[in-house]
């Protein structure tokens, strides 16, 4: 089954809708789905008060329904939170906490997403064709339980603290990234194809960060290990270019690996004298 959701209005207040989840929709008729509860500001509403719902039968019948949202839902939070299977497609912008703690399945956004997309993710895939906000894949403020698995692909730019406290999994960013990429990272891989603001890998203990573009500066608590001709991002994806390899963060006795492309970073050439 494919369920299509069309927002009935432009949302002015934040909407909390963790029920937009294939797991919840599964086995329900369109009327039952419409009666699911959501919050708009401090008022409880039914899903069909905010969205027009349409169901169509899929050609191939997947196990869990595919949910497609047509329109701007940038005020709708927690879409696909905790989802375990199925697929969500958002043809527009999506709000905060998209796919929070998701375990499996796929979310595709043909627009931008706001903060905490894929927060505390355990598995599955999130693909964003626009930009992503701050705290991509990072836990809620104060928590140390970061991303533990899964994959996030962003084709645009991302905000600050992408992949903070990450333990496992992969984040691929084909645009630029803000400050503190991989803050307090404990494992996993983050790839930033373009430029990166400062403080990459601050307090990281383990894991890998690869930056293909220009980095403002590398933290003084990172030490240079050598030059590499190519870097493998994941199975079947290798970047062929010379990279500096740094390890750190030494303030945390870290063994994290930070690859920074040599070409776009002539200001880091002074590190070569230590090799």
């Amino acid at each position: 089954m494919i369920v299509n959701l069309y927002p009935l209005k432009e949302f002015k207040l934040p909407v909390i809708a963790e029920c937009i989840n294939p797991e919840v929709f599964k086995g329900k008729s369109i009327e039952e789905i419409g009666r699911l509860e959501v919050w708009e500001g401090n008022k409880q509403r039914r899903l069909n008060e905010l969205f027009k719902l349409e169901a169509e039968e899929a050609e191939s019948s997947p196990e869990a329904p595919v949910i497609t949202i047509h329109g701007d839902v940038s005020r709708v939070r927690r879409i696909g939170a905790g989802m375990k299977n199925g697929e969500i497609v958002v043809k527009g912008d999506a709000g905060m906490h998209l796919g929070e703690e998701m375990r499996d399945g796929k979310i595709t956004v043909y627009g931008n997403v706001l903060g905490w997309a894929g927060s505390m993710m355990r598995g599955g895939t999130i693909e964003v064709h626009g930009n992503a906000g701050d705290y991509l894949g990072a836990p809620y403020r104060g928590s140390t339980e970061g991303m533990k698995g899964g994959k996030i692909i962003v084709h645009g730019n991302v905000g600050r603290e992408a992949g903070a406290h990450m333990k496992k999994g992969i984040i691929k960013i084909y645009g630029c990234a803000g400050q503190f990429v991989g803050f307090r990272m404990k494992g996993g891989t983050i790839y930033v194809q373009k430029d990166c603001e400062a403080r990459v890998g601050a307090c990281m203990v383990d894991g890998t960060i690869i930056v293909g573009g220009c980095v403002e500066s590398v933290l003084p608590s990172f030490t240079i290990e050598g030059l590499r001709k190519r870097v493998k991002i994941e199975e079947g994806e290798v970047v062929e270019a010379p990279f500096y390899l740094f390890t750190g963060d030494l303030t945390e006795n870290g063994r994290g690996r930070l690859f920074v492309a040599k070409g776009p970073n002539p200001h880091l050439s002074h590190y070569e004298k230590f090799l």
Partner: protein
Amino acid sequence: MELLIRNGFVFDPINGVNGEKMDIAVKDGKIVDKVNESRAKTIDATGMVVMPGGVDIHSHIAGGKVNAGRLLRPEDHFKDVERKTAVTRSGVGYSIPSTFTTGYRYARMGWTTVMDPAMPPLEAKHTHEELSDTPIIDKASYPLLGDWWFVLEYLRDGKIEECARHVAWMIKATKGYAIKVVNPGGLEAWGYGRNVESLDDPVPCFGITPREIIRGLCKVNKLLHLPHTIHLHTNNLGKPGNYLTALETMRCVEDLAENGKPVIHITHCQFCAFKGDDWRTFQSGAEEIANYVNAHSHVTLDMGQVIFTDTTTMTADGPFQYTLYTLTGNKWTNHDVETETSAGIVPFHYKRKSYVHATQWSIGLELALLIKDPWKIMMTTDHPNGGPFTAYPRIIAWLMSRKAREATLRKINPKARSRSLLPSISRELDFYEIAIVTRAGQAKALGLKNKGHLGVGADADIAIYNFNPETMDPAKNYRAVRRAFKRAAYTIKGGQVVVKDGEVLKHMDGATMWLDVQLCEPCEIELNENLKRRFKEYWTVEFENYPVSEDYLAVSHPIPVKADV
């Protein structure tokens, strides 16, 4: 307003009522002999357990460090949100709930009196502001006096009577309820980056030992006739091998006991019943402590039970919190409260699969089950140090059912399981004993005359739980016990029904109890002159701004105490 609770199985240990089917009459917030049946509102408690409202002797619910804990742990709150209803306010949990939520959650479980056990005198105003904002329950707070410079000086000079006058003034000034002593001497030593290792280790700059502080304050407590004994968090808390310190502490005040009355309360005893030389050889020392307590009557304990969950540890024991930080590497705060005390906070996750954590879980229950007299041991989690108070129904189930204990034992660390004493203990508490460890014993230890029982004249604080002890065996149906205690069928506070079926029906303010200690002769002038001079020298707060005035409390409930000095 009149109220009649009909036909419940009443458990009222202070009056010796053990599960008898009887009616309880309430008029104007007090329990009375009888009421006009035609006028009174009737609650049918047929097939239900009726107990006095729960009393918690030790639960960190308000004050500077509780609030610092809330700020330190935003991640603790966002998954545990309570929306507002027509009568209640919104709030968040989990291990350090906001003030309103704290009051509602206690009331939902049938608890009506809660003691906040650690109030730095300097932060008394903050503590009372939060207590005033904690609805429904009655509460009080214990000022931390064990490392207070004046106390140390008086005790060093052997001036017990002067010390007693000073403590009396302090209790009145902070609107406190009992003398709280945390790691005596250790907190002062922590100001110099040190700690005290034993009862006879001198405190830097004061030349006094923890033994002298404990004994001195015990004597002060007796001179002032305070209703509760001194409330002591022992030295070396949280270190392997500390059960010896706990035993030594209990022994050091043995000779001060009179007429078999308790003179000391060792709080969250689980944390000071560790045997072994280090964490690898760590074992339970519960048996030794229980043997001692079984043979002596001058000591009461509370459990400080550990729950397997993510919680926040917070205590005035700064050096211990620092040790905990070095053990866990978690975020932490540590604080020195001028001349008074210290404080620290570290988030902590008790895990089933950890040998040490699982053994700690076992120690708490071993203590409760091995100590034969339930009046000597009280049920607490040292909220939030061992776990949030919302876990009380689970502890009650463990205490009442061997089956419940075995179900958890199967899931814990295998080494801890094989060393635990729990499989060899067949004791299962009944509702009468549960009423003692959760309310009657605590009220008695606190000297609360109108709480913890259902005799005529007592405050009408009543909890009714939907569990029929006649048709169901709590040892077999432990899940039903847990459900019943989680959501009280009715909670009645001051004669008004505040909770029905686990839902709060009514918002009301609870009172803040404090001791109005009346000395034989007034000595305010001399005390004030001396104090004022010292305040100018050492404090950041002016003397005039220091005491908490009575109008500062939302509902003040002074309890007069006549002292011997």
